[in-house]
């Protein structure tokens, strides 16, 4: 004879408050609130916002046309050129600002593509089960294990001067495996939960159950996957362009580094040209990484900083 459970309490770091099942409409606003209160998420979002603005309005913000080779080549930093000029007489600052667009596009597009594929493969594998699951999981694991970067290098070797689209497609088509694995294991654990069973018993079609019951619960993991994929895309794209496998005429941070390296910028004292594009890549990457970390904290209260005890009785 147990104490009648009138409510369903939740055991957690703050474990005594009975948790009411949240209506779906408040999930979004709760998320926003959580983001605003978390310092890391704030810093990350601000950085992201900063770069997005640069990407949308480069013409208004940059002082010069990035391709214009009109200045004295090889100058170091000055009032007129905050980061100096390149060996070809271009303004480094303008190049940095115009380069934001490509990097952001690659991050979001490749990251998005990879995430969509990860959701499709991971959730299908979990939901279909059996042979389909076995096959999908095998493919996922194989792609996961084969190092993507060398594979992309091999692919790029056969198609010289890979353009932006190729980069996005290749990064997206190869970078989904990690997310798929995580999403699959989460989907597996949710699938057996009561509210999913309820929907099935109600007679809802499979697709409905997946899209409207399963996926909303997995939002935070999906967002975290996207952030991770975007981070990877930024770094991988920059790396590929740096070693010369991208389009050398493209306007991006990676290509800036490529040209800087080719012209021995470090050695000849053009430090900003050689270092600043890397700083930008690092900052954009840091933005995604911070938001990813903050998301971990938001979805797992145990990881949050421990609040101090209030007034004593």
């Amino acid at each position, binding site marked *: 004879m147990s104490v009648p459970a009138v409510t369903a309490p939740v055991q957690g*770091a703050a474990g005594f408050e009975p948790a009411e099942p949240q209506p779906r409409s408040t999930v979004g606003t709760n998320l926003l609130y959580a983001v605003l209160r978390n310092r*890391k998420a704030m810093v990350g979002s601000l950085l992201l916002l900063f770069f997005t603005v640069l990407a949308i309005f480069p013409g208004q913000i940059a002082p010069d046309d990035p391709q214009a080779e009109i200045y004295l080549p090889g100058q170091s930093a000055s009032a007129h050129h905050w980061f100096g000029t390149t060996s070809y007489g271009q303004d480094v600052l303008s190049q940095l600002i115009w380069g934001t667009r490509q990097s952001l596009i690659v991050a979001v597009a490749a990251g998005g593509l990879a995430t969509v594929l990860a959701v499709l493969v991971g959730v299908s594998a979990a939901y279909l089960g059996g042979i389909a699951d076995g096959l999908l999981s*095998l493919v996922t*694991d*194989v792609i*996961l*294990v*084969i*190092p*993507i*970067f*060398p*594979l992309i*290098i*091999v*692919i*790029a*070797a*056969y*198609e010289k001067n890979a353009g932006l689209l190729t980069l996005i497609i290749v990064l997206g088509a190869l970078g989904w495996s*990690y997310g798929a694995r995580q999403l699959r294991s989460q989907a597996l654990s949710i699938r057996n939960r009561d509210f999913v069973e309820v929907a099935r018993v109600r007679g809802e079609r499979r697709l409905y159950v997946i899209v409207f019951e399963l996926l909303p619960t997995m939002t935070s993991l999906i967002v975290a996957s996207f952030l991770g994929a975007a*981070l990877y895309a930024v*770094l*991988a794209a*920059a*790396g590929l362009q*740096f*070693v*010369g*496998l991208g389009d050398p005429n493209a306007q991006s941070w990676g290509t800036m*580094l490529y040209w800087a*390296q080719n012209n021995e910028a*470090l*050695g000849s004292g053009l*430090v900003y040209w*050689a*270092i600043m594009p*890397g*700083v930008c*890549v*690092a900052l954009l*990457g*840091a933005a*995604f*990484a*911070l938001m990813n*970390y903050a998301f*971990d904290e938001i979805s797992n209260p*145990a*990881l949050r*900083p*421990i609040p101090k005890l209030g007034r004593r009785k």
Partner: protein
Amino acid sequence: MRFVLRRLGFFVVTLWAAITLNFLIPRLMPGNAAVAMMARYRGRVNPTALHALEIAFGVNNHQSVLSAYLSYLGNIARGRFGTSLTFFPDSVSHQVLQALPWTLGLVGATTILAFILGTLIGLVSAWRRGGLLDGLLPPIFVITSAFPYFWLALLAIWVFAIKLGWLPQNGGYDYTTTVAWSWTFVVDVLRHSVLPAMTILLTSIGGWILTMRNNVIGVLSEDYVRMARAKGLSPWRIMWSYAGRNAILPNLTGFAMSLGFVVSGAILVEFVFNYPGVGWMLLQAVENQDYALMQALFLLIVVAVLFAILVADAATAVLDPRARDVR
């Protein structure tokens, strides 16, 4: 035992996939690079180099794709990877074996070091929750883990090699000295490896620290840790045998998955430092369109990754009795 067999089976499948990718990619690229390449080289390159390319592409004029594939597999199995264009007339296998020790020494050693150090630091920082270490490290390392490897390398070169002149910025060793097992040579090699090693260490350690820290925090709220405290065991014993040994398990699995990052980072670092390892050679091969060499190097990288995963799996089996009993 079944566990081991399943893993080996998986490795074989992955290896086969890598080999097949090597075979298929040039054929799938627009314009069928294989055939175009062969046509371009015919008559302009000597027969040995041509033969190397034929092996690399598994192309032989009047063969069907399937039989080309099979003879390609046969060649790989016999270790015949062809002749390198870049290092003509040296064989691909010989060149690859030259580069291997450099990468093993640099990347292998630093990755293991980063894993061990990172795990230890993560364990200690989570153990002293709320302490200085715990408050400072996570944000710092979240940011550093987002740094592109090569950028840190460039920075390191600029600060330590150019500005301060303490360490060399290029190569695996001073090319003017003779290669011999002498003390000066060893010191020279070490000097040349400091900067690349530091770069890899600093960029990869962040991930280990963070994941270990998160694991330990999760483990610390487990009942068996509370039980260990109830038993009045010393904090050291709890940290090692109860928290540490359980928290490290997911890290070992994660090790396998992070190898992709390690490899890509290694390639870029070797490129920046002109360090004569596998990654540097791969990029050289790409630049010279030395496809035979490139494909062999790619296979080597895949094999190395699989081997590392095998080691991580073995470590898991040793540390986790539950893994040994998995059906």
